[in-house]
């Protein structure tokens, strides 16, 4: 058989044996959950380091005390700090390279942030296996980012700012209170400890010690199972994800029998490029629904829902994105008030941001505005203002951030940002604390390897 005949036979055979084609899309679901078919490494070592300095210009309250927004996290001791806030190393690939239908992703955090604070400075953030056997329904199981808001779902090493928006930080970055119920004897029935006040009043610096949570933040992750995929239609990519998880953040196990449901849809007109900075116009919507058990009163349960929609546009030299988010239940009341977290309140917020890559330079300029309304339309009953578990009335947080990025190369960049912040509350005691929130300066170097 000559070369041309062999070619013809091979082509006919391939056509007869053809199956549903796979789409290697460059979106977060696919970038984090899959590998390039036929090409991925058995074990690709990768990671990134972020070193930063932040300085907060906020004023103390009348008593000389500071609350968390006026201090540098995760320690919340003082108003200026150098920090290695992220230092992650991981391995990903296809353990058996001949079979592209199975891939894995594992990543650990060694930096100092909400993930590792109080956890000996290290924590596994991702450990997942993806099965790509069913066309249109890939299955990912383990610990990984939940399908949701762009700020949380995106790879943090390509995030265009240093600090999250207030709405993402307070509404979506879930906190898990310490529980004095840990180790309580189950034979005595569900643990109820309402007398212990774990909350903290605004404190003077240095050593304000306002972080009253020693468990890892949720880091937009959960342990569970996800069905997802992406479908191409011309230049458009349409993606979906359905996840079912513990609703217990980075904790490997579950602390109750309740599970969280996560839904995600996106459609993107891809202009070109690949990876985390692929150019395109993406529109997305998401919803999360779960239930939480009170950490200090395990007879109580509370619904927790979050939802949002937004878009992201990137075509150099311009970038623009916006997102609206809302939530009900388990509305975060501050890093110093863990016992206020168990509530049925509502909150909403949004951000609008844009960037401009200065042509023929390595500079990029960024501008972002974000707004967050906490405890929306809530007014405390006059009979319970002093109850430790009672939250505050409606509060608003508005921030304008001006930033710049200098790209040394594709893997190394420096962020500089200056945030002008304004906050107020209908509760006098809270308003006295938040009205002194002022500007914050931050500079950070990121290197990906």
């Amino acid at each position, binding site marked *: 058989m000559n*070369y041309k005949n*062999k*070619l013809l036979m*091979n*082509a006919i*055979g*391939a*056509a007869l*044996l053809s199956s549903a084609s*796979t789409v*290697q899309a460059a979106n977060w679901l696919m970038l984090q959950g899959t590998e*390039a*078919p*036929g*090409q*991925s*490494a*058995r074990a690709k070592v990768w990671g990134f380091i972020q070193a930063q300095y932040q300085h907060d210009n906020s004023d103390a309250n009348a008593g000389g005390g500071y609350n968390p927004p006026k201090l540098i996290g995760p320690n919340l001791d003082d108003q200026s700090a150098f920090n290695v806030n992220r230092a992650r190393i991981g391995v990903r690939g296809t353990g058996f*390279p*001949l*079979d*592209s239908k199975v891939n894995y992703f594992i990543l650990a955090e060694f930096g100092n942030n909400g993930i590792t604070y109080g956890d000996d400075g290290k924590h596994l953030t991702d450990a997942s296996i993806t099965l790509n056997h069913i066309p249109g329904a890939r299955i990912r199981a383990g610990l990984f980012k939940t399908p949701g808001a762009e700020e949380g779902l995106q790879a943090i090493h390509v995030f265009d700012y240093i600090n999250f928006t207030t709405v993402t930080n307070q509404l979506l970055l879930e906190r898990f209170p310490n529980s004095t119920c840990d180790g309580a004897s189950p034979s005595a029935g569900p643990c109820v400890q309402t007398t212990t006040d774990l909350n903290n009043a605004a404190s003077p610096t240095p050593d304000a010690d306002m972080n009253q949570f020693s468990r890892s933040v949720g880091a937009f992750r959960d342990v569970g199972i996800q069905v997802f995929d992406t479908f191409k239609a011309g230049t458009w990519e349409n993606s979906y994800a359905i996840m079912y998880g513990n609703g217990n953040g980075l904790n490997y196990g579950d602390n109750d029998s309740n599970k969280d449901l996560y839904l995600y849809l996106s459609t993107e007109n891809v202009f070109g490029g690949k990876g985390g900075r692929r150019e395109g116009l993406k529109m997305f919507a998401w919803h999360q629904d779960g239930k939480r058990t009170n950490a200090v009163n395990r007879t109580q349960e509370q619904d927790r829902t979050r939802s949002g929609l937004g878009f992201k546009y990137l075509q150099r030299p311009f970038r623009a994105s916006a997102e609206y988010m809302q939530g009900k239940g388990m509305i975060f009341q501050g890093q110093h008030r863990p016992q206020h977290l168990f509530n049925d309140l509502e909150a909403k917020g949004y951000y609008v941001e844009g960037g401009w890559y200065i042509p023929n330079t390595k500079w990029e300029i960024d501008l972002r505005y974000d707004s967050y309304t906490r405890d929306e339309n809530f007014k405390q009953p006059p009979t319970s203002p002093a109850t430790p578990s009672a939250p505050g009335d409606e509060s608003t947080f508005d921030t304008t951030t001006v930033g710049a990025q200098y790209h040394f190369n594709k893997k190394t960049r420096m962020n500089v940002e200056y945030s002008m912040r304004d906050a107020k509350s209908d509760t006098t005691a809270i308003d006295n604390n938040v009205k002194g929130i002022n500007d914050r300066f931050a500079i950070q170097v990121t290197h990906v390897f």
Partner: protein
Amino acid sequence: MKNILSVLLLLIAAISSYQIQAAEEDKPFAEERIVLQISDPNPFKQTLVLNVANNLIKAYGQDKVDVEIVAFGPGLRLMFKENVNSGRIQGLTDSGVKFSACENTIKGMSKKLGHAPELNSNAVPVSAGVVRIIELQNQGFKLIKP
């Protein structure tokens, strides 16, 4: 004995001449003949070998260079049907680049997988990748291992 030897030499010369002629028939105006070897598991090598083939076509012109990519060992993954570079392989095939897949490697991978790997429709199985490279070198091809 001398006659037999002479006949053998003539036969070899005739076969070689036929092979060269056959190669020239595919690309009669080719000024350069290049065989590219891919036998490495490194994913970047897959991209690299395709880039090199593309650069050769761009530099010489489609009719002035004859390029064949021979894959064997771990490098055969480049010619898997599911490979993410299948679009580029089709594009290079349209530009006249040939792709050869080692049958020995296919057999070995079939044992490990429990079934034969599905190959790109543009990949043509050859009995042994390394033998194919030697054959091509005998036909005047230059071997490049990116």
